[in-house]
């Protein structure tokens, strides 16, 4: 017990204070309701997202504001990493890989558009994060590479070089980054699960639960996308799904994909979380809507798990995990609302996106 207090007392107190500053739902509803981008920024002025408003006021560039926010968040996570040691530090690094992988994907996509699809593209290369997150590699060398081999070389001493080498032929043959990006996600979650497995038993249990729900959410999101945009066989889908989910096994997911029914999944969720029946009572007509219903249920389960951690024993890895997940979700929500307001989308549509 003394060791867990020593490990977590400081960082958990710090992160609990930050969690208390997360934006409440009422403020999100207010942001969705107001008429213009400037009004949303005015609301964000008294929140930790004020940097977006400050940057926008000085430069008129919303994307730059979002980039500044991302830089601030990554710096905070790097700071968190310095406060922890041992297995906790490894887990924090594993979580930070999420940002790094997202950044890598953006860089590779810019290269892909430029070199493989021969499109000069937009100015997205101006808004990419260039600072080191976990591994040291040059984003500019990736963006400006002449071929995939150059990117592989620039990623040496990182775990991504092997993944890219494995998929380089497929990228050129199929003209798509899809399978490479899926492999990056597999790597991210696999690494996270492996790091969690080596933690203290109490921390391991909490970590695996939360990471498991996150994996479930990711898998359901993919199945929705596979159903909508890709023509994949069941075997291909099974190969792509990330293992290690908490509620949804591979078998359930494959049944969902092939039969388009979600009743077994919903039944399973209801057994473990009967309080979610109010959400289930709403009707869902088509298969995509039913999958979106499952996604909503999983979101609620995630929030339930986080609430359980926040009200439980205070000296565990759960607070750190909860903060990372809640903050990431919140940032995505804020960015979605800002962009929706910039393009003058109505409130109902924004609600659907968010």
């Amino acid at each position, binding site marked *: 017990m003394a060791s867990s207090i020593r490990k977590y007392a400081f960082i958990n107190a710090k992160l609990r204070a930050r969690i208390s500053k997360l934006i409440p739902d009422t403020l999100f509803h207010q942001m969705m309701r*107001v008429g213009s981008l400037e009004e949303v920024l*005015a609301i964000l002025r008294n929140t930790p997202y004020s940097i977006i408003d400050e940057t926008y006021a000085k430069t008129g560039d919303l994307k730059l504001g979002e980039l500044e926010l991302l830089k601030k968040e990554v710096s905070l996570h790097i700071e968190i990493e310095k406060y922890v040691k041992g297995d906790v530090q490894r887990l924090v690094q594993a979580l930070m890989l999420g940002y790094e992988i997202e950044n890598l994907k953006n860089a590779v996509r810019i290269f892909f558009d430029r070199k493989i699809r021969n499109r000069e593209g937009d100015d997205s290369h101006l808004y990419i994060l260039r600072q080191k997150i976990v591994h040291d590699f040059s984003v500019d060398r990736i963006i400006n590479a002449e071929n995939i081999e150059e990117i592989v070389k620039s990623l040496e001493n990182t775990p991504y070089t092997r993944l890219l080498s494995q998929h380089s032929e497929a990228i050129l043959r199929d003209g798509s980054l899809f399978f490479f990006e899926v492999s990056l996600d597999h790597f991210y979650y696999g690494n996270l699960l492996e790091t969690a497995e080596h933690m203290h038993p109490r921390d391991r249990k909490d970590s695996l639960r939360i990471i498991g729900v996150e994996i479930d959410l990711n898998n359901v999101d993919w199945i929705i996308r596979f159903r909508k945009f890709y023509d994949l066989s069941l075997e291909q889908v099974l190969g792509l799904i990330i293992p290690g989910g908490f509620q949804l096994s591979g078998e359930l997911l494959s049944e969902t994909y092939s039969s388009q029914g979600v009743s077994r999944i919903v039944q399973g969720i209801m057994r473990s979380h009967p309080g979610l029946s109010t959400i289930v009572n709403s009707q869902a007509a088509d298969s995509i809507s039913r999958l979106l219903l499952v996604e909503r249920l999983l979101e609620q389960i995630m929030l339930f798990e986080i609430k359980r951690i926040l009200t439980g024993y205070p000296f565990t890895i759960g607070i750190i995990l909860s903060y990372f997940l809640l903050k990431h979700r919140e940032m995505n929500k804020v960015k979605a609302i800002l962009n929706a307001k910039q393009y003058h989308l109505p409130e109902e549509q924004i609600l659907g996106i968010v």
Partner: protein
Amino acid sequence: MFTARMIKLFAVVLDHDTDKVTEELLREGVIQLINISRVEPEWQEKISDVTPQVSMAQIADIRKRIEGYLAPLGIHLESPKEIDLEGRKPVALEEVSRKLDRIADEIREIRERQGSVQQEILRLEDIHRQIQLFGPGLSRAALRTQYSFIDVRVGTVPMQHVKSLHDETREIPSVILQLKKDGEDQPLLILYMKRDSDRISRILDEAGWKDSELSEDVRNLKPEIAQDIEKKISELMEEQESLHRVSKTRMGEHSEELQRLWVQLRVNELFYRVQSHFKHSSRTVIFSGWLPESKRTALENNIRRVTSGRCFLEWYTPDLHKREVEKEESTPVLFKNPRFLAPFQMLVKNFGVPEYGTIDPTPFVMVTYLIMFGLMFADVGQGAVLVFLGMLGTFFFKGKKEQLRNLSQLIVWCGAVSMTTGVLFGSYFGLPWFEPVWFDFHGIISGRLQGQSVINDIFDILAITVYFGIAVIGCGLLFNWINIVLKGKWTELVFDKGGLLGGWIYFGGVYVARYMVMNGYKKLPDVSVIFWLVGLPALLLFLKTPLYFIRSKRKGAGKKFTLFTPIDFGMEWVVELLEVFAGYLSNTLSFMRVGGLGIAHASLMISFFELARMAQETSAMQVSPWSILIIIVGNVLVIGLEGLTAGIQALRLNYYEFFTKFFRGSGEVFSPVSLSSRD
């Protein structure tokens, strides 16, 4: 000692007097309106809501929109005044919205221009970054492969077209360097983003451009190129700064009108908020609310005046409505403490709001908190520093956040009491400059007692804190009894953990403990004394559970009596006794931390002085700068760390050891609707 006495108004006025009465209620700003349907459910069918003429939500949204525009200008919006209420006009929301949309469009134009300028800056920075990243020199071949986003061309242009070329490319992120002239035409190097290739090519063609080879001296022009880029970026940033100022100026031009609109909207919003609590019958309007009893006469006179006496007003005190109060709603609470108690009221409110009709502990918190702080942090010099810092804070936060101002004032109080106890214990920045008025605290800790005193050792110091704790807990019990008597809950008065039996056990236990201590821990009082002081009340406590069981049965609730029920009674009695004995013992001993922290404070100062003395001994100088530094740093550390610790521990003892004896904290703060309402 108690919060302000409240009274409830029930009023019926004629329909056509609604607006006048609304304005009067808003002007007075003393009533917290309540929902009548909650109080009189049987009226639900006979009355209907008063519907405001415009949507309150819409008014609030537009008001917040104006606040959003004015906030970056640093304009502080004052609450509406009475004159604004008198001049109240309904606001045409559509027109105001359109006005705001026009302002937003003006600003959007500037933002779009800013966005374009920012794009140019970012592109130039990108060119700059890529040149820095990829090798020392320039070569066309290398550039083609390495500088994938930028391209470079070297060539010549007729002299008469050089200026027009510069003018045409001003808007495009690019670098044009004039090279050494060797012939009639002007040699130029141009560096640009590949995405702008078509535009650049067209401009170059129109200017009569002819490509040529990269010469050796051109390959080393990287520093000049970098300088040129930096100059362009600097110019663009100035333009950006100027646009930012223009946007603020433009908004500033509208600020007066916006402030006027804001006041109008706010008055209307508050007006309709008052009316949203009204209920309609066929020709009358009904409303109800709480107000301080001291405001009753003025409000009644004003309502009668504006309605020319055509009103029905009925007043209720909370005692008459006790049943309704307990069942339906709570009486709101208005603190009536003098201004100087504001910091301590803040401490009380942070814990909770006392129930109406119970004791407001604020004045007592002032005494207990400051005594505890003074005992833990006794030093004249360090206290003076706290007073100074607190006064700085009070000055700086004046007119700003009230909580920070109150915190600063609290620091002043803590500093003042530290100075007082510093005089009592003879501590001046840790030094014994003057004789202590009470006893030599530092002397006891350092083991250098000087003469006989009332307090001679650490145990005497700890004893002071224990007695203090007993006094505080005793106070808490007394308050609990008073609160219970006021509520008329006689069973609780006897059997509550903080009730008469609990108090009997506690003070009996204190006597027994004192007897034992006074007899060198070797003797207890007579068995009969222990029985009367502790045993009898403990036995009487057994009656609690059966009594509550019988009471709940009489009300028709509660469990059935079974064979296990007496066992339950016994178990609950044992647990209750354990809680009483262990709880009171730990509560009392908890106050020893006051002594402990005071000892720690003195010990820290002694340690720093010892270090300073050692530094002085190793120095050849008469006064070693290191020893001075150690004393200063030591004092700073002690003020920071010990000051914070003392403040937190004093708060903890108040909240946990004192408040838990009597404070329920389920009250609701009185929040009337007035022109100065925050939201």
